[in-house]
């Protein structure tokens, strides 16, 4: 059977007379992966995400989304299987209160009210939004609005969740809340793609990292190899390593010793204190 998602020689431009924004993108994704999509500003991440969810239509190359039953889905069919949280949280607001906003998709699905109530209250508590549930979504802080957008997608339990910069402008504990809200559906079998510039979040959550450069895949590998083996290439692609990885690399250089595979503070501590 073919891969869950297959992208081959995919090209895209916004208008006829403009340059290609995606220039022959290739990768395959299996069900159950947890992927960070990274790359410089304007590298094409959001554009690629919009093609995958079916918001933009490409004219060149292949994009296939295969259902559990092995059928390649049409753009209309696949949209129902994917949830996307867009980069700009204001684009997504439909309802007049936070509660209704999160309940919207469930109501559309025809779920019974008591059940909706339980699910929505639960996620609002988890996302630290319960106290603003009666507020209009526009009258929230930006970070709160972003979490509302995410909550309203997660409750629908899509097969694939794509989050465009879910932790941008969030503090650490809110970022953790947001990422954990993706880990939960992932553990239940969903596939997760998150777009980010936050190196620490990549180091802590991603299994695999795909780096786009000028509309092409430049690096596609598991996360440890991404930071350790490709360390020297990252900067030229406008990416960096977490501060702790950088420290380990520098110390290895000056001492000639070998701290191995430091992605988190605890990796460092464990190797020095025995």
């Amino acid at each position: 059977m073919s891969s869950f998602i297959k992208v081959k020689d995919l090209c895209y431009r916004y208008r006829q007379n403009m340059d290609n924004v995606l220039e022959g993108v290739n990768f395959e994704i299996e069900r159950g992966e947890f992927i960070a999509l990274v790359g410089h500003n304007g590298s094409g991440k959001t554009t690629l995400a919009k093609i995958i969810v079916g918001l933009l239509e490409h004219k060149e190359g292949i994009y296939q989304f295969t259902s559990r039953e092995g059928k390649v889905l049409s753009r209309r069919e696949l949209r129902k299987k994917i949830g996307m949280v867009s980069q700009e949280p204001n684009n997504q607001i439909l309802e007049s209160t936070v509660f209704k906003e999160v309940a919207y998709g469930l109501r559309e699905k025809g779920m019974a009210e008591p059940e909706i109530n339980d699910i929505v209250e639960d996620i609002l508590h988890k996302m630290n939004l319960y106290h603003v549930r009666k507020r209009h979504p526009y009258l929230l802080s930006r970070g709160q609005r972003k979490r509302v957008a995410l909550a309203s997608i997660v409750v629908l339990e899509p097969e694939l969740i794509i989050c465009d910069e879910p932790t941008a402008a969030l503090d650490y504990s809110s970022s953790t809340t947001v990422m954990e809200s993706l880990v939960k559906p992932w553990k239940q079998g969903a596939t997760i793609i998150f777009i980010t510039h936050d190196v620490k979040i990549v180091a802590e959550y991603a299994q695999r990292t795909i780096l786009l450069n000028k509309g092409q895949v430049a690096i596609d590998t598991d996360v440890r190899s991404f930071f350790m083996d490709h360390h020297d290439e990252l900067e030229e692609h406008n990416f960096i390593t977490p501060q702790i990885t950088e420290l380990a690399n520098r110390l290895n250089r000056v001492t000639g010793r070998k701290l191995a595979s430091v992605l988190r503070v605890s990796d460092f501590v464990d190797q020095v204190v025995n």
Partner: protein
Amino acid sequence: MSKEGEKELLIRVENFGFKYPGTRDWVLQDINLDVHRGDFVSILGESGCGKSTLCRALVGLIPHSLKYCELKGKIHVCDMLTEETPITTISKKVGMVFQDPEAQFMSLKVEDEIVFGLENRGLPEEEITRILNEVSETVGIGGILEKSPFEISGGEKQRVVIGSVLALKPEIIILDEPTSELDPIGRKEILASIGKINQELGITIIYVTHETEEAAYLSNKVALMDQGRFIRQGHPLEVFPDQELFKNIGIRLPQVTELYLELQKRGLQLNDIPYLTLEEAEEDLADIIDSKLREVNSNEQLY
């Protein structure tokens, strides 16, 4: 306004409190803050604690563009009382980069976003061109000047907005998480430029961020906000070692500071002062790592 020591006091927030229309709770309470000319103040705090609200108050959007809100206390900015001064007067002295970049766009072309404020000031054409080139180099938008600001990527939008404020070189620049969607290298470079105009031109910066690593490098003052109140203000070196404080409000310390505190807890003999920067950590740890790993290596040889 009064002078404290050498430096001139530019902003004084006195017992400020604020309540949005139609909500029950005060969003800001008992806010006191002094900012002197040339300061680089970083404001940190959990999502929803009131950082953007305070920024809006500092430029006078609160109360001027919001009806039926409630206020307590006073805000002085460059000898003006914000409540009594029109926004247009305040904005001659204070430039602000909002958290929502789209809210700030006015033109159909990126270039015009940068040039607009300069033309309003009646600067000569050559001067405008010079500034445009300089700024688009700094924020890296040379390739998109002809595009519509609504048809560019999220990070490109943030770059444009930062550029439009930098172009005007106001006395005070308020940046409300301006770099959250920038790629890490772009972020480093643009922050370095902001640090530079702070150092070299003495432009006062108020910077809302969640990145303690940046605050540690750049600021001479950090202010921690929790649920609408400042719970701590001071030099990064005074404030950052207090790990509990940061944990309580969900803010993460620089990884090197976390490392210092963890290694110290495990009984290693380190510098007296916690690391704030990579360089400090590298300098202090080089010998320790060398001998520690030598031990490990020779132990391995025994087996």
